[in-house]
Every structure is written in C-alpha cells, then in structure tokens.
C-alpha cells in the first residue's frame, strides 16, 4: 500500500492561489487525493478549483475547519521557513515542502526546532510523495507509476520519474515513491525512509536514487548493512560531475573531496546493495531477479 500518506490523508496546500500551487492542487484532486484546504494569507474565504477547495488565511483555521493532517508547501523560498513552522504549530503531522531555494540557515533553524517535534518534514526541494491508487502529495506525475511492492526513495525529481516510469513499462509497480529533496539540509533522510520501508509490510524491495554531495548515502549504507532485510537497488547520479561545482541541486556538490559518486557507490556496494550504473538498468535487474526477461511493454 503506502507509507507517509494514503487514501485517507487530508491534504492542505500552502500557497494554493499561486500558479504552481493551484496547478498541482488540481493534479492531486484529479488523481483522487483529498485536497481539503488551501492556505493563502489574505485570501481566506475564497474557493478555488471550481469551488471544490476552500482557502483559509492560516493553516490553523484550515486544520480546524477541515481536519487536514498533511501539508504540501508551494510558497516562495523567503516565506518557506515560516510556512513550515506554521504547519507544525497547527498540528500538521506530515509536511511536504516542494519549495526550492530556501536559505540553508533557515533550514538549519527549522531542523533544530523540529528535532523536538512530532511532525515529519519531507524536503524541502522535494517532488513529494506518490503512492499509486493511494495518494499523490506533491508534484510527481500521477500517471507514471502503477501499484506494486517496490519502494522508491530519491533525492531527485525527473530522474526518479524516469525510473518509476521504466518500472511501469515492465509491469513493475511501486508501493510509495518518496522524494526526500535535493537540498543539503532536509527534514527526512534516506535512512529514515529506508527504516519505514523496512517496516512496511507492502514493500518488498527498495530502490534508492542518490546523487553526489554530502554523506547521506554512506550513512544509509551503514543502516542497510546492519538493519535491512529487504533487497535494495541503488543508482547514484553524478559519476561525471566535476568537484567544487553545484550541479543544479543546492545539495549536489562535491566539497573538500567529500560526496563523490564513487565513494557512495562503493559504500552501498559494500553494504550489499545492488548497484546500477545507469538508471534504466534498475528495472532490468529487478526483472532478472524475478526470473523474468526485461522486455518493455509498450516501448
């Protein structure tokens, strides 16, 4: 089935009257996810998306009126810290922050604060969470995946879509796909999600898509080696990335020689993870492990 969100999740969209917020709220609704409220300060009382979703001035009011439990944040970077803290204060249990470009000092303060909170933050700079037939909370296209038993966790967006889409073409389905975000400081780590997948009865295999920068994948490797029983497949993007240059994502940078793809790949390999050298190899490997030939369904 799914982790983090499911068909009962009641989604509140922060920044719902912005271009992006409105578009993706519509996509979520179309997918069948319960988008119960939107928040834009100063626009409380309006209704959007053909009168289907009420807009509130604050998350607190949205939660009080609609019972929202999950927030998806699309507000501009300079207001994102405030938006996260507002959601936490209103009692939201899962916050998914799509916003890219939040200052790292803001995120360090948010993280230090959330360390003592029950609220889970996914992202920022996350594409969100998608669980076929269950819920779409974020911007991952709803039609690229089918339901199944593979859990996917990734630091990136379109690269993940690519892999999930390739799985679908081979008839392989996913339980949940979680984008943890491409920023250097994020609320939920690879390890956190791997732990949840390990405990999730509906997930049988896990795909992990890392990239250069930081040492998160190395920490995840330690967790996999010591705690995980389910098979893990991994691809680390950025084998060809030069040092000291930020590759698009704020977090994708090799600094002081730390964070190269080869180090990560090596750690994961040593932890028993099956390593793919290019993304499309993963679906093929899974087919092989199932004793099936990796023939594309419709390509």
């Amino acid at each position, binding site marked *: 089935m799914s982790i983090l969100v499911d068909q009962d999740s009641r989604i509140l969209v922060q920044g719902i009257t912005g271009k992006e917020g409105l578009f993706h709220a519509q996509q979520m609704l179309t997918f069948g996810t319960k988008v119960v409220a939107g928040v834009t300060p100063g626009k409380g009382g309006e209704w959007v998306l053909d009168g289907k979703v009420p807009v509130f001035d604050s998350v607190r009011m949205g939660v009080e009126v609609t019972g929202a439990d999950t927030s998806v944040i699309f507000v501009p970077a300079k207001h994102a810290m405030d938006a996260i803290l507002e959601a936490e204060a209103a009692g939201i249990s899962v916050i998914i922050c799509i916003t890219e470009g939040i200052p790292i*000092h803001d995120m360090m303060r948010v993280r230090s604060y959330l360390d003592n909170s029950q609220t889970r933050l996914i992202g920022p700079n996350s594409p969100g969470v998608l669980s076929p037939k269950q819920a779409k909370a974020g911007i991952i296209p709803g039609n690229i995946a089918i339901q199944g038993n593979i859990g996917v966790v990734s630091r990136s967006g379109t690269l993940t879509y690519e892999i999930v889409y390739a799985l679908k073409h081979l008839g392989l389905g996913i339980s949940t796909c979680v984008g943890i975000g*491409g920023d250097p*400081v994020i609320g939920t780590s690879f390890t956190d999600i791997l732990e949840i997948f390990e405990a999730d009865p509906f997930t049988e295999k896990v795909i992990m898509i890392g990239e250069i920068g930081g040492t998160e994948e190395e920490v995840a490797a330690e967790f996999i080696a010591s705690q995980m029983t389910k098979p893990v497949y991994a691809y680390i*993007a950025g*084998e*060809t990335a030069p040092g000291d*240059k930020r*590759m*698009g994502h704020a977090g994708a940078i090799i600094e002081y020689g730390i964070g190269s793809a080869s180090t990560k790949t090596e750690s994961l390999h040593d932890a028993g993870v099956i390593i793919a050298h290019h993304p499309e190899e993963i679906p093929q490997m899974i087919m092989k492990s199932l004793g099936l030939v990796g023939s594309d369904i419709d390509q």
Partner: protein
Amino acid sequence: MKLHEYQSKQIFSRNGIPIPQGRLASTPIEAKQVAEELGLPVVLKAQVLVGGRGKAGGISLVKTPDEAEEEASKILGNKIKGLPIRNLLVEKAINIRQEIYFGITNDRLAGKPIMIASGEGGVDIEKIACTRPDKIIKVHINPLLGLRDFQVRGIATEINLQRENWRKFLQIGKGLWQVFCDIDATLAEINPLVVTNEGHLFAIDGKITIDDNALFRQRDLIDMRDLSAESPEEIKARKFDLSYIRLSGNIGCLVNGAGLAMATMDNIKICGGEPANFLDIGGGASSEKVSAALKIILSDPNIKTVLINIFGGITRCDEVARGILTALGNNNRNVPMVIRLVGTNAEEGKKLLLDGNQITANTLFEAAQLAVQTAKGVKA
C-alpha cells in the same frame, strides 16, 4: 558565491577579527606605494577565487619598494588556473609562532553549523583531515542558541592554545559566528589564524562562501561577486535562471532536472563519450528559456553533438520543441542533435521536430549511445 580574500577580511575586521594592515593594489606602481606606506617587508597576494595560489607563484614576500613593484608586475601579468589576476592584496608581513585553522561551515547530516579548528593550520583542512584526523576539533552549534562561549573555550583547550590567548580567541570565534550568521555564509574560514611572537592573533588568510539562495536578503553582498571568475556563458545562464556548468567534453546536454541531467552525463560517459556541459532547464521551462539554453550550449566551439533529454512532467515537450526550433533557426554550425522526449505532450513535441533533421531516441541509454556515435562521426 565565493568572496575574495580581501573581501572576506573586510568582513572579518568589521566583526572584531584582527587582520594585518593592508590595502588592495591593481598596478605595480600602486603596490609599491602601498608597500612604502605600510612599511616593509610586505606580502603581495594575488586575489583569485581558486586555491593553491602559493604554489602557483601568487604570493610573494618582498623587502624593498622596488622589489614590491617588480614582483607585483610579475604576479599581475600571470593567470592562476586560467583565472586572470586583477588585484593584489599588499599586507604588512607578520611573524608567525603558531598557525591555526579556524572555520565554520554547515554539517549537512546534522543540519547544524559546525565549528572546525586545528592547531596545525596553514595547509588545507582536507590534508590535515587525511594525515592527522585527531588534530581536527569539530563542535556543532545549535543555531537557535548560537555559539556559546564555553564551546569556543573548549576548542581553545583542545588545540592547546596558550591560556593568555583564550580571550582573544573567544572574541575571534564569536566574530566568526557573527559573520557566518549575518551574511548567510555556508563557509567562513580563517586559515591560518596566526599567533605572533608578541602573542597577537591575526587572520592571515580567509575564505567566505555565501549561500546563493540567501542573496535575496544579502543585497549589499551581491556587488562583491567577481564576474571575472565566471565564463560569459555561466553569467548568461544565470540571467535565464539556468543551471549551467561547462565541462571539457564534446557532447552538449540539455535536460530538465538536476538529477536527470547528471544521469544523462553519466550515460554519455558509460557509452564512451564525454559531456561538454551540465545544463538543467528546471521545471516547466518556456520555449524562450529552452532556446536560450540551447544557444549557450552551441556557443561552445568543442560541441560535436547535442543530447536533449526531457522527461515531461510539469515541463511540456511541445514547448521544449518550440524552443529548440527557435534556437536552431540561428544554428549556423548545423550541429547534429539527438532528442528524447517522454511524458507530457511528447507526441506533439516530436511532431514539431519532424521537419528538422534530428535523431530521436526512446530510452536514455539509447539516446546516449546515439549521441556518442554521432560525436565520433559514426553515422547513426
């Protein structure tokens, strides 16, 4: 965004961190004048945004005014790692009893600032980390509480700093934290912080990196950006809000999404080619943006072919196709293109490109193979 040594030191000084007396000079004559004003000996230091200045001849200790002029003219004429040297920092020479590394950066895993120090400074901290990891002291800072005095004193003890210097070291530590916070730094580093024979402490060299994402609230720092360290293409890319990094290969890449862009480069490499650049057009790019991106790629004379890989989610493939066509209207070099469009409006996009003379591919791996073959002159 990286600051020059002299810029970093200005900021240090404003925050109570002592620096040697010095001034910027941009001509040999000026260097001589400054040297005379400060009193000799002085050190001339090339202001370039790369490491390894010393080894590349960018630093010189001079003892007479004439020597200052002579050395300055040598250094100012040089380049270091391809970067021109526009300015010299002329500083009064200082005797050195001990060299300390002292910096703050962010620890990604912990999600907290981390203060790093070593009693064996003066060289790259990575080198100390490799050769003498026990000589590196690391202390996390709770960003909500700020750096605490006791933490700095703890560091002073660990690096065996003499007690009579604790007070000064505490002041410098607090100044460094102030710098780190006030200007949204991701790195604020003094290396070396020296103790002189007279027991004074000075920041002899410094580096500051600012979080690009925070520049919206650091307006007065934006002027400090040194565009000479960036290629005209990178400057142009930033104007269009594109992530672009030039590399040394011959296959241009145009991709939506940073992870997918890296994966595309990796695929090229696996297939035996070399990417000419990293380029992420971001999500939901307009045809204008795509067109600008493609023009930037094509401005690289090494380019033999371009691989365009789009996974349409918010990004519409037809919009991308339109951008490609616009750019190609001005493409006099007739560079061949391998194009893969998947997802939102992929069919419409492909149709638009039918008129052109492009190679299309289904999978990313196939696209990479075709691009490598094309670049090598193998007919696809």
